[in-house]
């Protein structure tokens, strides 16, 4: 009897750990969606692909796919930087020319870019699941950090959670206490007014894309390490779930994205663990639809623009 209760409680604790890890990853991706939406009201469908690129770039740099290998730290830094640049490029090439076009045009372009990038990755890296070379990753990461009876927390999980927390805090500081952050908030309030006040809108949007994409890239690397799996369609599913998280938290709100990511991660793990795993993707879709229909502003969101 006691053993059964112990089992149940360690099952619960382990699932909690799994859920929080998953949630912090979703939160990192969701922030990218929410920042871009907050500033230019665009659902950047290609954000999931940036995340996928982060994973692939670090994989390639570590495994010598491009013909040379880099040490772990450098490879991560380069991948994140390239992701940030790719985000800017995405904005400049695809979205900026459509700033004045109807919102639908930008949205469709975003979908087009997503398809394009996904298939580009397929063409470059092939479709199969790739794994990081074992010797390129610090060995410590795969060791358990803490073992309490049946509950195991690996160093990787600790790293994921602490990275997520650290980056979120940094993001908070950037958005609230720097010039660029103030400019972002100004633009999200009123673009024309901000530009009249001397804010360089294009530059701020570029920064937004860079930060969001950089975070997406970090998430990509962490996921690649956590599951030890990198493949071209990873961005699609993670992107959808992260988007659902962003919607749940209230799109445009950064704390909302964090909370939404956490809730969705836990819901998915507990749903998959206790109920059934066939519909674990469905949970994200259902949450997304229900939130949009019942409370489109999400948990923390601002009110939607008036349609008129």
């Amino acid at each position, binding site marked *: 009897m006691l053993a059964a209760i112990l089992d149940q409680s360690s099952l619960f604790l382990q699932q909690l750990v799994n859920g929080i890890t998953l949630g912090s990853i979703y939160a990192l991706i969701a922030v990218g969606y929410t920042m871009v939406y907050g500033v230019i009201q665009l659902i950047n469908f290609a954000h999931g692909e940036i995340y996928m690129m982060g994973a692939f770039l670090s994989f390639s740099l570590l495994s010598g796919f491009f013909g040379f290998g880099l040490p772990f730290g450098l490879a991560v830094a380069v991948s994140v930087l390239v992701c940030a640049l790719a985000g800017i490029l995405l904005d400049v090439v695809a979205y900026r020319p459509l700033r004045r076009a109807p919102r639908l045009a930008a949205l469709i372009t975003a979908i087009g870019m997503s398809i394009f990038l996904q298939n580009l990755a397929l063409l470059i890296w092939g479709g199969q699941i790739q794994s990081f070379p074992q010797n390129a990753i610090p060995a410590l990461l795969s060791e358990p950090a803490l073992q309490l009876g049946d509950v195991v927390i690996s160093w990787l999980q600790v790293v994921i959670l602490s990275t997520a927390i650290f980056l979120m805090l940094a993001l908070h500081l950037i958005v609230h206490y720097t010039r660029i952050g103030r400019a972002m908030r100004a633009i999200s309030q009123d673009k024309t007014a901000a530009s009249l006040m001397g804010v360089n809108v294009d530059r701020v949007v570029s920064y937004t894309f860079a930060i969001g994409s950089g975070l997406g890239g970090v998430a990509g690397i962490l996921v690649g390490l956590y599951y030890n799996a990198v493949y071209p369609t990873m961005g699609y599913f993670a992107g959808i779930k992260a988007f659902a998280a962003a919607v749940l938290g209230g799109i445009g709100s950064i704390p909302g994205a964090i909370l939404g990511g956490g809730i969705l991660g836990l819901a998915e793990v507990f*749903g998959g663990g206790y*109920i*059934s795993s*066939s*519909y674990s993707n469905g949970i994200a879709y*259902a949450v997304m639809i*229900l939130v949009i*229909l*019942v409370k489109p502003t999400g948990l923390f969101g601002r009110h939607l623009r008036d349609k*008129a």
Partner: protein
Amino acid sequence: MAGRKTGEILLKAHNVVKKFGGLTAVKEVSLDVRAGEIVGLIGPNGAGKTTFFNCLNAIAVPTSGEITFAGHSLVSQISPATSRLVFRSGLLFALLSLLWLPLVLGVVWPETFFRLEAVLALSILALFRIYLLRPLSLFRPWSRLLLIIFVLVDGICAVNWLWRSPEFSEVSFFNLFPFYPLLVPGSLLLLLASLVLLLLFNLPRVKEAFGQHLRADVITRLGIGRTFQNIRLFSSLSALDNVKLGRHCRTRANFFGIVLALPQARKEELDSAEKAAECLRFVGLGKQLVSRAGSLPYGDQRRLEIARALATEPKLLLLDEPAAGMNPTESAELITLVRRISQAGIAVLIIEHDMKVIMNLADRIYVLDHGELIASGTPVEVRSNAKVIEAYLGAQHAASEA
């Protein structure tokens, strides 16, 4: 100004209030328009004139007050936010009940439906239904009864499910549950009862409780046509199509009539083309039938908008700054046009900044300032009203300083 004949009261607004959050845009404005009359509504910028217009044709729903038009009450007596909430809840509720049916079928024939997902779905649905019933229960006791019934049915079905799923078959509690034989027929009975209750009580009672809220398109059909301050044409359609759209509320061809090209639908289409062309000629755009609305010159767009409103066969026409941005010649044409409309027996309520236009046209004038009605009467009376002069001078004063 007694030259024109005026009839009985067509539109009557009484103590109309419109609040946006903490801001009161319209404060207890009362106003009436008689058939065949031209009434002006003036006031400095931001006085709430357009908001008041929006209240009249349900683009905005007044926070309180009464509006009657030709014998119809346009505003319901319960706060619009509440009635919208309840209406939406009711709709979602009905949808959920539909989704719920297959789950109950699953209880009766467990091998046909779902695995353990059903328990999850069921509990989510149950929570959701309770959440949705909350606003309903604010109003009538019977909706609380509904709530209890639904919770019961959901609970019974969930228990049923848990009992039947193989994963739980070894758990003793469910095996010991003494009333199992009653569960299936009981839950079915309750479900039927709840559906009947939903149908019998929900929709008619809710409507009765909240009064009729008329949508903008219904009000247009009742006979209020309008134009907008910032022109709202369907700019990628042709001028003729824009006006034909005005005919929309006076035609009735449906999907099947159109697809099968029934004679009635074809005749109606020809009719509305003819009437639309007539309206365009009436405002002086007879030569621009096929030009794209968006590519017309500004003044023509204003007139096109009027033509579109006229095509709806209004009894009352709301004109929101029709002379804005017009040169004196165009304004003069506009004055004749409005006169002609009035002579056709259509009452006109007009917002205008151009004093020359308004003093020339209006039989009576209402003056708004900061959402409040500060004066009303004939143009001569209004012109000499101290409050009005103050409001306008103050505004001009502020404007010159800025």
